[in-house]
């Protein structure tokens, strides 16, 4: 275990409870309701900021938030944009905020060292999926805000449930690092197992697993140079069958969606083709 995590304080319960309450209040105030006023939204932003600070403080007590300015920035972007995604009334703006959240998440993944996934998230989500949604939104709602965008279902209950769930998750994450190394982490990880194993594998037939050792021994600051190659080897080695299944899934989704969408429109064109 990391020495920093082992020496962290237990989570102050009061702080956590306060953040949960602030988050619930903020969500309730910010979610679209008929009784919204400018002041209630302002109050919601205030509570939201308080909740953010509270959770950051909790995270700090978990193990040093603030050590990495880049991580804090991208995490802040993703969390704030995520909140904005669900509370914004205009669906187009909601989608834009979701794109911002994606950018933040992609940044988090890059900081975590998953270069391929970080960039692939942008390519797949922001580049293809979200553009389609924007298409639909822009065509469906040229102007104004529909009534169903100005109310939400059970905002109070949902906000409370979400905040409590987040509190519980935070608590368990805190337990994870503050206590003795828990069961999941006590198991030797693959890399640790390899690091512990004698290094005679280097240069032998299994070159890939030999280079996989390198990050574990070379220290945490090193950027993993062959990240994509490793991921590809893993994907098309151990998980080849799953990749094939995913490919079939994509094909089925493609064919299915085209079949559903073109069911009603084919008649006129077909008729014309036949007549000519």
């Amino acid at each position, binding site marked *: 275990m990391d020495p920093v995590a082992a020496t962290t304080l237990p989570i102050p319960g009061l702080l956590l409870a306060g953040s949960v309450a602030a988050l619930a209040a903020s969500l309730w105030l910010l979610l679209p309701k008929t009784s919204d006023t400018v002041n209630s939204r302002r109050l919601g932003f205030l509570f939201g900021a308080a909740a953010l600070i509270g959770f950051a403080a909790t995270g700090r007590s978990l193990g040093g938030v603030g050590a990495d300015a880049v991580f804090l920035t991208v995490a802040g972007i993703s969390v704030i944009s995520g909140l904005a995604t669900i509370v914004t009334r205009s669906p*187009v703006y909601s989608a*834009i905020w979701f*794109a911002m959240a994606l950018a933040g998440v*992609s940044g988090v993944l890059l900081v975590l060292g998953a*270069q*391929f996934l970080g*960039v*692939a998230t*942008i*390519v797949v989500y*922001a*580049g*293809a999926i979200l*553009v389609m949604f*924007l*298409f639909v939104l*822009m*065509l469906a709602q040229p*102007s104004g805000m529909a009534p169903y965008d100005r109310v939400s279902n059970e905002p109070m209950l949902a906000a409370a449930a979400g905040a409590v769930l987040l509190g519980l998750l935070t608590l368990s994450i805190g337990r994870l690092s503050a206590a003795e190394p828990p069961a999941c982490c006590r198991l030797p990880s693959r890399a640790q197992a390899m690091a512990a194993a004698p290094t005679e594998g280097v240069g032998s037939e299994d070159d890939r697993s030999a280079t996989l050792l390198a990050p574990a021994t070379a220290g945490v600051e090193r*950027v*993993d*140079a*062959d*990240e*994509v190659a490793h991921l590809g080897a893993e994907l098309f080695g151990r998980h080849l069958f799953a990749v094939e299944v995913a490919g079939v899934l994509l094909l089925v989704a493609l064919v299915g969606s085209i079949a559903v969408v073109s069911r009603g429109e084919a008649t*006129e*064109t077909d008729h*014309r*083709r036949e007549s*000519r």
Partner: protein
Amino acid sequence: MNLLPSAATLAALVKIGLLVGGLMTAAAYLVLLERWIAAWVQDRRGPNRVGIPLTKIRLFGLGQPLADGLKIILKEDFTPSGVDRVLYNAAPLVILAASLAIFAAIPFGSVLPPLGIPGLPDPVPFLVAPGLDVGVLWVFALSSIAVYGVLLGGWASNNKYGFLGGLRSSAQLVAYEIPLGLGLLGVVLAAGSLRLDTIMNAQAESGVWYAFAQPLGFIVFMVASFAEAARLPFDLPEAEQELVGGYHTEYSGIKLLLFLVAEFLHMITAAFLIVILFLGGWHLWGVTGSSQEIGWIQALLRFGILSGKILGVIVFFMLVRWSWPRFRFDQLMNLAWKVMLPLGLVNLVTVATVEEFRPQLVAALGPGFAAAVAIALPWIACLVGWLVAGVFTPSGTDNTPILTHDPLDIERELAEHERLERSPRNLSPTLVGSR
């Protein structure tokens, strides 16, 4: 705490400054080049008057970009009523930022000779973000971000031409990203890396540019990058004759400038990618060598050759603009999904087969003959794919519009008009009062 930036940070800042400055200047002068080529192709002389201000020195019109830029910056930045102000203002920034950020992963030369500065990697690469392992994907990701600028700009303008241009544009860009990726996958497969500098080095080492090794991939990538850069014959997003100005119809002044600069940056990006991926990058047989240990002269020579190739591709882009008419939108989509996508797949499968069985080929035929076969197979695939695509293209298409009623049926139109006149919803209060 050390407040002074490290040598690596300083080097990165210098590279960013050089790159952004160079790109902006290049975009400005490419406008001039585009106007020149347009004029020459049309048997005109082109802009050749503006030289150094306040003197009579004309310099073949090289002062024109400065005058153009000043003019468009000083123009009124007009915001029409009814626009979505936030998105309207954000769209040009998004598209320009995305177009510029693409160049973080694009190498613009080979390497500098060792400088011996502590804290700097030796040799210094001509690349802003040398640690990025997924250069090609980075380019893809940011060019898909640029779609947002187009889409939001068109939508936020509250203008039907702008909106149609935005929709068309994003549909086109999303559709052509697939053949673009397929054309590129062959290169990635052959080079075994997603890093653009590694791909260039691989071509320099073997001496075989991927345009010769994978002709079909080259064609598919070229066509797709024309479409991605929205150049003729794929300039549907801003087809002036149909859409006034497309997604930037409502923009003026400096925001329009940002859009136009971003468009030229897209073209420069496309030219960079074509040269780096398929035309050997900085490599030229017998001139540049292929080693990483080089002197100053060779470093500058490589930079010059890369720039020259890029300029050549850009001139080709501009010549193409005046050679062929624009595609119709359905033809554009047919080309993407029914021609370019299968051709890209054919190329990918051929390249994968060649790469997979290369060791066996070398063992069976010897290295020289194996290399010849490895080049011949993709060429055969290219010819076959091209012929099949040509033979199965329909020799005529049915373009007559599907009419629900005769558009010139004036009786029907009059009846409709009367019906609308009679419906009370459309009567203004004054009219109701007077009746």
